[in-house]
């Protein structure tokens, strides 16, 4: 479909070809049934047109056998759609463990990205090709949505929680991304470009944008300035509050006997609403930090706690840094958007 007026979006991720295959299957079945029904109607309407003003055709009551046939066959075809669509969805739902993580904060009407190595961008996201990228997303205001047609991915970004999506781009280029959940006045302007680069170009881009503290480093600064250390220990080793070292990804037992896995959402909730889930053996003494940290700072704190878990290789590089490092909130878009490809 490389005509001047293409009828398919670009296909540039490991997922896009698979989604297209299911799409073509659905299109084929739809065209088949539309032609079958349309053809039958046209044939009957011509063949059995009224030729005599007073004719009365012989009544036909119906046929249970036919009814069964045209219930079961569509059901079987529908089930093939279901299983195919569900298995792709399920595969896509499980985020990979070795992905490069990018923190995303949406607000009316812009996107802020921060790489785990510290680089910040606005409305533009630079990523290496053939590498799994996981977006950890939240919003400062209303619901938004990150939609990259060329990658066939889309996920709402919801206030008060983290949602994720991931992709692995297969060819370098500039790809449009859009906000796909209506968010107010400039909704249609709230998009930008995903810039997929060869690994070497990406490394160059990273080093050209160095000098900004990593989210984990900034989180460490917040950890100190907010006084978290007084209960969780100077390096997160624990005290009156639970230890943070090794916490992320581990199983946590609560005082009501429930067990959960400590993920980003749990960390977020424990900062904003500490009383919601109390770890067994600890008292409900932590104050809420609601209103004291914004979404970006929250993500930095979460990134810091994550960096204390050795099992997360990509955050190990984010070594604890000079304490008190202030988050740098100005972004530096570094590449100009070009035409697709």
């Amino acid at each position, binding site marked *: 479909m490389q005509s001047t007026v293409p009828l398919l979006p670009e296909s540039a991720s490991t997922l896009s070809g698979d989604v297209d295959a299911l799409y073509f299957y659905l299109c084929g079945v739809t065209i088949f049934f539309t032609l079958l029904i349309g053809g039958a109607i046209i044939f009957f309407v011509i063949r059995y047109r009224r030729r005599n*003003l007073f004719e009365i055709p012989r*009544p036909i*009551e*119906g046929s249970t056998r036919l009814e069964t046939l045209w219930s079961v066959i569509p059901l079987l075809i*529908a089930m093939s759609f279901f299983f195919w*669509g569900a298995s792709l969805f399920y595969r896509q739902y499980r985020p990979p463990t070795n992905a490069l993580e990018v923190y995303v904060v949406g607000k009316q009407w812009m996107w802020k990205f921060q790489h785990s190595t510290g680089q910040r961008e606005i409305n533009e996201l630079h990523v290496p090709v053939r590498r799994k990228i996981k977006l950890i997303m939240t919003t400062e205001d209303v619901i938004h949505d990150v939609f990259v047609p060329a990658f066939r991915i889309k996920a709402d970004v919801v206030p008060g929680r983290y949602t994720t999506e991931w992709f692995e781009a297969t060819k370098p280029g500039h790809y449009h991304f859009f906000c796909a959940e209506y968010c107010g006045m400039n909704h249609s302007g709230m998009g930008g470009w995903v810039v997929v680069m060869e690994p070497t170009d990406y490394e160059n881009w990273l080093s050209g944008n160095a000098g900004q503290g990593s989210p984990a480093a900034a989180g460490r600064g917040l950890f100190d300035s907010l006084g978290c250390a007084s209960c969780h220990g100077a390096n997160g080793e624990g005290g009156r509050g639970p230890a943070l070292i090794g916490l992320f990804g581990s199983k946590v037992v609560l005082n009501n006997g429930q067990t959960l896995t400590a993920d980003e959402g749990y960390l977020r909730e424990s900062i904003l609403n500490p009383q919601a889930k109390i770890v067994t053996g600890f008292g409900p003494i932590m104050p809420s930090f609601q209103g004291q940290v914004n979404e970006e700072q929250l993500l930095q704190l979460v990134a810091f706690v994550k960096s204390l878990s050795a099992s997360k290789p990509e955050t190990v590089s984010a070594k604890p840094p000079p304490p008190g490092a202030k988050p740098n909130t100005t972004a530096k878009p570094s590449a100009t958007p070009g035409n697709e490809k």
Partner: protein
Amino acid sequence: MRNRTDRAYTTYSNKMEEFEVPKPPRTNYLNAEYGLKSWLLTKDHKRIALLYLGAISFFFFIGSLYAMVIRLELLTPQGDLVQSSTYNKVFTQHGIIMVFFFLIPSIPATLGNFLIPMMIGAKDLAFPRINLLSWYIYILGGIVTIYALLAGGVDTGWTFYVPYSTTFSNTYVIAAGLGIFINGFSSILTGLNFIVTIHTMRAPGMTWYRLPLFVWSHYATSLIMILGTPVIAITILLVALERLAHIGIFDPAAGGDPILFQHLFWFYSHPAVYIMVLPAMGVVSELIANFSRKNIFGYKFVAFSSLAIAVFGFLVWGHHLFVAGQSVYAGLIFSFLSFAVAIPSAIKVFNWTATLYKASISYDTPMLYALGFIGLFTVGGMTGLFLASLAVDVHVSDTYFVVAHFHYIMVGGTLFGYLGGLHYWWPKISGRLYPEGWGRFSALVIYVGFNLTFLPQFVLGYMGMPRRYHTYPADLVSWQVLHVLSTAGASILGVGLLIPLFYLTWSMRYGQIAAANPWNLPGLEWQTASPPPTENFLTTPVVTHEAYEFALPEHKQIVGKFERQKSVET
């Protein structure tokens, strides 16, 4: 003339007595009383249907104007016709007006109101005063909504998603919500009235399985109306409370959950789709059977598929939330159930098609709409399967693919059923015939215009064009090409819709006088004068025949005035 005796084993011609010359009955429901007061205080279901017809046509016209602005704006990638804030109000108000003030009441409140008592041989609905009340509630809801539009409009999208609608929008959210809230009660009362009427007021001999399928589908619709509508009322109330008092139901900062709103909203608004399309399916069942002169193939399957749709329709709302942050397992279950709800619709399509087999098919305008409906509904239904398929839905949700899909169901389905039914029963409603040539011509224009408007939008959606976008990237050439096609189609559609407006209005005064039974049909509504007397039937009919029983006219013993007249050629 008799060259088809091979399959036509009996004909009207050798069974029928002399034709009468059509003449208007001396008194009918239209001229029984005169004056504005006689209309505004009427308890006659037929007059109330006409009150609805007027009001609904008005709202449809307003909604269409908004659609025109949308289509014109999208001709170019830049926002050069209106500002973004205006555009957002335009598509929001297009949605609110069309969904709540046209599509939901369209067929039930006009055709349903007019025909259900006549089809079951009753004098009126069970609660005539409540019927009138429902119209006043509808008008009150309409006035409040129009106030919201005139005072400054509302820009949340017809879906009112939180927290945009509760915290961030500076527009008239509460006023618009109040209009919809009030309007909902009109829906509930209509549904209640239909259910009670169908249960208790059927004429002697009108058993459940002799009911026309139009009545069955309205029964199913009424169930959804009374069970679903209270949920949207509660939801709107919660949005208003959250907006006024920050009670923290939906706001995460106060411990609420924004996705809860989406569950509540779609718990009503998905079944609402079936409120819109089930009555149209009922109309199409009537048209297919009557213009084929054949009983519907698999009557019971078609009847019960309506009920199956009403029941399953309540279990699929979560397919609107596949990318909203709903759990993956909920997504799997809702995807599965959404495929299940497609089956009863498929059964209907196959049965309609099978009814045409060895039938005697005429090409009158209503039949053209019915045949168009089947084709468009097939496309609309099949593309619904794309949206139920999880991985594809992730890509196309909130894009023009969805817009195209639901317009195929709403416009290709509901509007085609509505127009087909309006033409079919027009002689009964107005006592006049519409000009058949213009009817066929405009049906064709509407069909072509509709497809040209919405087929390109499927492609546009798969290419990634999000819905509710005021502008789009200029570097994507094919997006603009597809938008231009769509706008061209919309202008054809617009012209096509104006034609019936003119000739139907014209025919009310100048059309040929209609016979009592101009189509020569067995349905009860045709066995009384056109227009009918206020009490519908001079004596209560006794039904001794099945629905759509054409074969043996002499068996149709209906006590009371039973005229059979030659259809007037146009």
